[in-house]
């Protein structure tokens, strides 16, 4: 893999280049970090902002965005995650400049009209999420409190070119990407506006609308750009990734408690947060919360085969060939598409200013067990009960 990155010398956007010889498309992604410590109201507005960006810009109407943005057969993607927003344009070979024009327009001159914001807010308010989506994406948000003012304020606060990470992959023309980006996304001269007031009113107690309860063990964040994370990363794979993982063997095969039980690596500014999640209609809350002890007991049985399986699964994940990848770069599963690879490198650059490389070190069985025990011991447990 050819990989190049550059940090603009002053305060321009960070850039990552992933050129692929023979590619017939170019993928350009912009990662926009969310403001720190957003309230639930702002989080709802953040989601509305992503949704309403599809409605157009000063230069591109909604129709033109859909038309120009899907020429390679891949529609424009604007996706809100709690701590960042990803904008992606995929163009056929030779379309790098078109992609950059669209992204620049979206990032600097989005229309954001009152009527568009009201319509997006209405749509998101009534969006039906499955219990699993609710557990992973935590989106029982107060959309009723979203106003145009909050959405536009967030756009002005967050869309600062100096905080962007821009990834170009595939058929990238022979240009100086950092220069191209800094020419197009110039740092704004003015200071960011003040954020509209926080609203920290407590969120109502979350509950699923169906017969499913979801249980979670949230572990300490991992820095995948640090080789020191290898043992803890492999421990996450041994605990929750794949059908040979402890969660699958203990909770599904052993207990018959759940159909879906897995580890998720969740992107945050602090690093990738490992989250062990399972859903069940039958176990009580007390019973479900014993998962930590059950998994901890399983760790005692681990062998060299456990290490080998975890390492193979981790390698397959970073190669994009693990269909049960825990990496959550967006709403869709992480896979082997160029878009996914761009997202992984973009997020890594945004988080650490470096590429992912955390499976370099050798790890013994004892080290793996110790890492897993430590992660489990310090995990925060939570549950969203069934109704």
């Amino acid at each position, binding site marked *: 893999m050819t990989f190049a990155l550059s940090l603009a010398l002053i305060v321009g956007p960070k850039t990552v280049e992933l050129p692929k010889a023979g590619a017939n498309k170019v993928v350009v992604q912009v990662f926009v970090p969310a403001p720190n410590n957003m309230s639930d109201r702002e989080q709802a507005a953040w989601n509305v902002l992503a949704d309403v960006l599809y409605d157009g810009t000063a230069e591109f109407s909604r129709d033109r965005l859909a038309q120009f943005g899907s020429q390679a057969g891949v529609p424009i993607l604007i996706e809100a995650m709690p701590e960042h927003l990803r904008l992606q344009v995929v163009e056929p070979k030779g379309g790098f400049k078109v992609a950059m024009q669209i992204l620049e327009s979206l990032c600097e001159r989005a229309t954001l009209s009152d009527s568009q914001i009201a319509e997006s807010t209405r749509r998101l308010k009534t969006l039906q999420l499955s219990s699993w989506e609710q557990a992973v994406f935590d989106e029982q948000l107060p959309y009723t409190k979203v106003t145009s003012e909050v959405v536009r304020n967030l756009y002005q606060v967050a869309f600062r070119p100096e905080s962007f990470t821009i990834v170009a992959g595939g058929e990238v023309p022979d240009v100086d990407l950092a220069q191209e980006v800094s020419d197009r996304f110039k740092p704004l001269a003015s200071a960011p506006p003040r954020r509209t007031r926080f609203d920290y009113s407590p969120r109502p107690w979350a509950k699923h609308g169906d017969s499913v309860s979801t249980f979670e063990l949230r572990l300490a964040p991992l820095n995948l750009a640090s080789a020191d994370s290898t043992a803890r990363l492999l421990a996450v794979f041994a605990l929750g990734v794949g059908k040979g993982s402890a969660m699958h063997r203990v909770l599904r*095969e052993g207990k*018959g*408690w759940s*159909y879906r039980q897995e580890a998720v690596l969740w992107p945050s500014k602090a690093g990738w947060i490992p989250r062990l999640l399972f859903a069940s209609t039958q176990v009580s809350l007390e019973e479900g919360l014993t998962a930590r002890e059950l998994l901890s007991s399983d760790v005692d049985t681990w062998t060299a*085969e456990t290490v080998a399986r975890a390492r193979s699964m981790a390698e397959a994940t970073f*190669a994009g060939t*693990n269909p049960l990848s825990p990496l959550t770069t967006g709403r869709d599963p992480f896979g082997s598409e160029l878009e996914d690879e761009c997202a992984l490198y973009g997020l890594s650059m945004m988080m650490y200013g470096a590429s992912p490389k955390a499976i370099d070190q050798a790890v013994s069985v004892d080290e793996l067990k110790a890492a897993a025990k430590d992660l489990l011991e310090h995990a925060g447990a939570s549950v969203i009960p069934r109704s």
Partner: protein
Amino acid sequence: MTTSFLLGALLLRQDRVAVKEVLSNGATLYAQRLSGTSEVAFAISFVQRNNPEPPETHGLRHLAEHLLAKGSKRDIDQRLESLGSVLLAETSRDFVTFRATLPSSRWPDALAVLKSLIDPVEVTETELNNEVKVLNEELALRSWAVRLVSDGWRRTYGADALDPFGDPAKLSGLTAAQVSQALTSLRDPRSLCIAVVGDVDPEAVVRRLTELVGTQSPTQSTDEWDRQPGNGTVRVGSADGEGVCVSVPGFMSSEALANLAAAFGFRAWTAGAVALYTPSARPGVVTLAVKSPASLPQSMAKLTGRESLVARTGLATLRQWLREVSNDPPKLAKLTAELLPLYPSFDAMSLSKTGDSISVIQVERAVKSMIKASTEAPQ
């Protein structure tokens, strides 16, 4: 062996070649070299050849999929995942399919592991009871879109179009012996198709596959069954979402692909929309659905007057998807394993050609038909 031939016609580029064999026990084997990739994909499909399962054991095929996926020695996941792969399993109306993808050099190891999917399996009562509990859990997690599609099938093809998921309550009374019998029947070599696609020598792969499955004997009757054409386009809706279900002839028909392109077009132009289709040589359903309640007519109405743009977007997406399928080992292996037994002339070249032969006008017609259907009240 009844047939054995080199599919020279499959040469999309000079470096691609495929071998297909239909063994005397009825099993279909297929291997294709796809250069420019470092991986190899396996798809093992058991085709539903005879009548669909009866209501009294509704879900038995799905249960069988869960049990077969463990492997005859119950170690398939540990072994496969140690090779950096994962076994994926899926039950649809016409197939039970298992899939795995690995680095190309590991194909002999993978075959040795995957063989346990077609070896005899004995099921214990404990395993059976546990798996029925797991099916109940799976049922609770079914997505709104899958439930809508199920409803669309019922309305389009009538009460016989039983959902492939099944009814766990009907399965709780089964004995382990009954289920073991069902597993034997499902694994019949006449129903079996194995497709291997990647950077491999196709002749060597087919030789090895022949050694693995050539000695198995058929166990079930050869009564062939086909689904009768469906009942046009229906509107479906629930508290979770709304959709339009269009009955289409089998995959590779221009009608099916034009409707799929129309659904892709809507998906590109409509926030939160999903397009669903399970490719089959038999008649099926293309579904376009949106999540928010009561927003389908409004979403569709916005596209009135833009049908041509939607059609062009959808056609570009369809062609891109077909190109990807033709060049992506996992996608091509799955489609081949599922279609080849029912559609013996299927190959990657005809797939691309069919996509290229679809016109914007055909897709636009499908778009208009979906818009019209969206204005009707859900039945």
